[in-house]
């Protein structure tokens, strides 16, 4: 990925797409030129980078501790931000006044226009924390400027225990988005190794591996994942559960990559440059890693990008069912566990729709991005 972003964007010398430049442009340059034309993919790239940035800086961006409970604000609705108070510029939300609806016997919250809670950027954090686990910090990106008793800032509402959904979604991004990346990395290793063996050596190894892949793909994934995930002992430390869940989720993901790699190996195996390298006395492993792999790297990146969303969805589904990650860990799937009860959702729809929006936006942009990368991986198709 770094290679793509390092390439000179708009500012560089403009290329003559029909002339000589295209003939001498390197593989990555062609890739970038083609990708740039796909506007939706370009926007998706920005969205995805932004989401990963939010995930990385979760401690700074989330205004509150995601596990801090507040019994006073059970199922508090989202508070809308207004920019002015009493005719002067002062970003604020209105304090929530709780009333008991005597008919439904439910607590209801109404904003009290006379009591603004002023909101500002770079406020002091309730507790000092370490950004990225390294940098000691005292400020949060935004929050209540002068917290008093009874003040609250729930921009996405609160859950059953009065925890801030916004902070939880931001913290959930850390786990949910990183599972995609870690899972894809495992798929990459499995896929390139197994697909490479299959395509490069051919013969019975190829046959056996292809049969095995077909087998894995013919089993419905959810029951298989469920069966494997349910075997994880409940008492395991969160980190271990996290890695095993990632492993289970990537169990299927590698197959499409292995197929892609195999196909490329098969078509490149008899190319002149491979034969030349072999005649020069290069070892098979050397040929694979210094000639074959670089030549289809762009395809691999595209396939990997398309594999991330399916892993995010798998983790979400497993955690939602209660057999994936468990509550002390915060992921989007764990957040959705709260929405399992349809009565709770009817009372507090934000329990469902806020994490859902995060999932849909990230999966949608990853899909668009992957599509754009895949088109760009065949640079000669329409650029020339």
């Amino acid at each position, binding site marked *: 990925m770094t290679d793509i972003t390092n390439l000179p964007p708009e500012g560089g010398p403009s290329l003559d797409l029909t002339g000589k430049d295209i003939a001498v442009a390197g593989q990555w340059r062609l890739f970038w030129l083609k990708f740039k034309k796909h506007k939706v993919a370009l926007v998706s790239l920005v969205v995805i980078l932004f989401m990963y940035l939010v995930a990385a800086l979760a401690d700074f961006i989330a205004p509150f501790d995601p596990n801090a409970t507040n019994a006073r604000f059970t199922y508090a609705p989202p508070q809308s931000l207004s920019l002015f108070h009493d005719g002067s510029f002062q970003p604020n939300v209105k304090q929530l006044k709780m009333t008991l609806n005597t008919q439904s016997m439910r607590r209801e919250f109404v904003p009290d226009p006379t009591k603004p809670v002023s909101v500002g950027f770079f406020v002091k954090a309730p507790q000092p924390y370490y950004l990225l686990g390294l940098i000691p910090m005292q400020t949060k990106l935004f929050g209540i400027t002068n917290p008093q008793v009874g003040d609250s800032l729930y921009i996405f509402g609160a859950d059953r225990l009065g925890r801030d959904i916004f902070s939880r979604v931001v913290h959930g991004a850390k786990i949910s988005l990183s599972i995609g990346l870690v899972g894809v990395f495992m798929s990459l290793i499995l896929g390139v190794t197994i697909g490479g063996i299959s395509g490069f050596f051919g013969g019975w190894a190829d046959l056996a591996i292809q049969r095995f892949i077909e087998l894995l793909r013919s089993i419905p994934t959810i*029951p298989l994942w469920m*069966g494997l995930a349910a075997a994880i002992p409940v008492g395991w430390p969160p980190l271990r559960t996290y890695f095993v869940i990632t492993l289970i989720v990537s169990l299927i993901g590698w197959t499409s990559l292995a197929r892609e790699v195999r196909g490329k190996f098969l078509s490149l195996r008899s190319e002149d440059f491979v034969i030349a390298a072999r005649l020069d006395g290069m070892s098979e492993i050397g040929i694979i890693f210094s000639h074959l792999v670089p030549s289809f790297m762009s395809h691999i990146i595209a396939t990997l990008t398309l594999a991330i969303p399916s892993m995010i969805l798998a983790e979400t589904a497993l955690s939602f*069912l209660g057999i994936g990650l468990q509550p002390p860990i915060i992921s989007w799937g764990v957040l959705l566990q709260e929405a399992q009860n349809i009565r709770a959702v009817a009372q507090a729809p934000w329990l469902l729709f806020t994490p859902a929006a995060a999932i849909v936006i990230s999966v949608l942009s990853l899909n668009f991005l992957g599509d754009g990368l895949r088109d760009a991986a065949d640079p000669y198709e329409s650029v020339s």
Partner: protein
Amino acid sequence: MLRFILKRIVFAIPTLFAVSIIAFIIIQLPPGDYLTTLMADWASQGGAVEAGTVAAMRERYGLDQPIYFQYYKWIWGILTAGDFGISFELGKPVTELIWNRLGFSLLLSLLTLCFVWAIAIPIGILSAVRQYSISDYMATFLAFFFLAVPDFLMALSAMYVMSAWFGQSVGGLFSPEYVDAGWSFGKLVDFAEHVWLPVVVIGLGSLAALVRIMRANLLDELSKPYVTTARAKGMSELELLIRYPVRLALNPLISTLGWILPAVISGEIIVSVVMSLPTTGPLLLRALLAQDMYLAGSLILLISVLTIIGTLISDILLALTDPRIRFQ
């Protein structure tokens, strides 16, 4: 043709064997064997356990034997006597619990497949014929959107919309008064009133993918010379479309059954859990959470076997409709 079918069936046997091994591994995965779990369960209920019973059950499941022998005993029981073991949580043989639910799972999956096909083909055709029109862009956007929404989110949202906006409670496949009633016309109508929502929810994800495939296939065909020839002969546009390119574009669509079916079954399981439908999904989840492994393993085995059989049937269907596959 017969040779082709036989060959496919023979090819399916190793796959079935491998699936049974995977199911067996899942049964064996939780720590401790089946009987230790059972003992713990009985002991927690305060029941005394007779030593004789334990020994008899050890013998019955071959728990003292090496692992391959246990597998042999398990699979042999299934193949010869249809004995899937006992669900310790519910204290009943697994066979008593699963068939009814498996039947509903199968029915739901079949209905979903029919729904997906019936909707995807016309939309795909429309999208291809009116390429780059507003309806094409709409279809493409919706396709991508529904691909990004997981099944269970769709199910939850649908239930929320139904209950918040239409004031209807959603869940189950029958109204309470029909659950235990025998089949009648009234029950059938009631079933239809309940089943459409899960069918739509499960189908939407696959629907999106199918529309994309149908559109791409048809676009490939539409640019071929024979279409121009037929048009030059003065054939009406609709007749031309239905007679040649659509029929050709349908063929690759049949082969997608191979992956649509696993996807639909996966979706069916998770949507059933959310909507509490009387299918395999809730039973499987409950069995897994309670570590009732014989029940869970049997369900996973049967679901996978059904999927493989479904894929086999789709292969044969494809060969029936497309001679090029048969003579390869």
